[in-house]
């Protein structure tokens, strides 16, 4: 049987990808951020997941406003990264797991989540930066099978936090009903508070972020009660990415154990949060 062995949250800011490409991990600006990752990398090394389900948002690489699915799931044997226009170096392809993808797609639609399935899907920095952070070694990064799950965070209406939490629960049920012996890890990417656009650009809310870091572990339903508009007000226009963390958390069991966490301000314009969770017995 397949099982979810862990849940991880991480920011997915493009500047992180550039810092890795330029080998700036030891720079004073970057060191406190990158130094938080080895415990998670070591856990992955030990736990050896077969599949990573990566919850992220596309920032205008694969999807444009002509067709904007609320929830889209990859069902491809391979996922390509590509030029996003502003200079992040594309990474080599990532491996897919079409069989598990289709199992999840069937299970989700049966569970009344009418998602968009994608047999071709370019993955952008929202997917690739977390993969680089979790698997710094290219060989390991291309060995693990992946399933990208893209959530619309470009064009309102965005799916509510409660809906995203329930999507996670449905993904959890889907994985649990897959018959092949498969170890799955779920990445909830993005966040925490940040706003890129408008006169309010540069907004960061440390108190709210720290509260989210705690509640996502102990009481995710409290976070699921916020509206999208609450999140935009409290965490900034792009801080609504917290819904991606809620998908991850929904896929985990009701009680989880926190193995590692870090919070760092600022990475680019963002409060950056890292968490490693295991299902509690």
């Amino acid at each position, binding site marked *: 049987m397949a099982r979810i062995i862990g849940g991880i949250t991480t920011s997915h800011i493009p500047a992180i990808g550039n810092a890795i490409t330029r080998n700036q991990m030891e720079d004073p600006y970057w060191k406190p951020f990158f130094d938080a990752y080895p415990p998670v990398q070591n856990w992955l090394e030990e736990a050896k997941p077969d599949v990573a389900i990566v919850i992220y948002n596309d920032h205008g690489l694969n999807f444009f406003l002509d067709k904007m699915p609320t929830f889209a799931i990859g069902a491809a044997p391979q996922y390509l990264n590509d030029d996003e226009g502003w200079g992040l170096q594309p990474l080599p392809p990532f491996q897919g797991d079409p069989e598990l993808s289709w199992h999840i797609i069937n299970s989700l639609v049966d569970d009344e989540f009418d998602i968009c399935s994608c047999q071709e899907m370019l993955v952008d920095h929202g997917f690739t930066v977390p993969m680089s952070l979790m698997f710094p070694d290219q060989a390991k990064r291309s060995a693990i099978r992946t399933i990208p799950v893209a959530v619309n965070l470009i064009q309102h209406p965005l799916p509510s936090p409660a809906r995203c939490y329930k999507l996670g629960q449905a993904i959890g049920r889907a994985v649990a009903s897959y018959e092949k012996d498969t170890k799955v890890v779920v990445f909830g990417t993005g966040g925490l508070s940040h706003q890129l656009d408008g006169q*309010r650009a540069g907004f960061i809310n440390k108190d709210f972020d720290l509260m989210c870091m705690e509640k996502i572990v102990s009481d995710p339903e409290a976070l699921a009660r916020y509206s999208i508009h609450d999140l935009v007000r409290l965490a900034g226009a792009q801080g609504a990415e917290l819904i991606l963390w809620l998908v991850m958390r929904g896929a985990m069991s009701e009680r989880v154990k926190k193995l590692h966490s870090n919070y760092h301000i600022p990475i680019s314009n963002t409060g950056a949060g890292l968490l490693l969770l295991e299902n509690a017995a």
Partner: protein
Amino acid sequence: MASAAKPDPIPGTVIFDGDMAVKGYALNKMCYSFNRAENRKAFLEDEDAYCAKFGLSEEQTAAVKARDTLALIAAGGNIYFLAKFVGLFGMNMQDIGAQQTGMTVEDFKAKLLAARG
């Protein structure tokens, strides 16, 4: 546009909803094209022709010419697509953060650091 009732505005924040997505469609479509190097080159070679090809409104074309992020947002630009536009001029999110808040880039970075409390 038959939109649902809009929630209370958040100061300094434009919610990119259906109305804005309709208003900004041509502008965002042009910016989306900048994912490809040949399109970036074509824009830089003849900006007016490139804007005309995508059918930008006068307001949008003026905002493009001015490299004015707030005006681009008011004209329906979405920040993720605008990122591809400002990238043409070597500007990143901190540069346009400074531009939108009327600060120097150094002051904008200091403001972000100050969020540590």
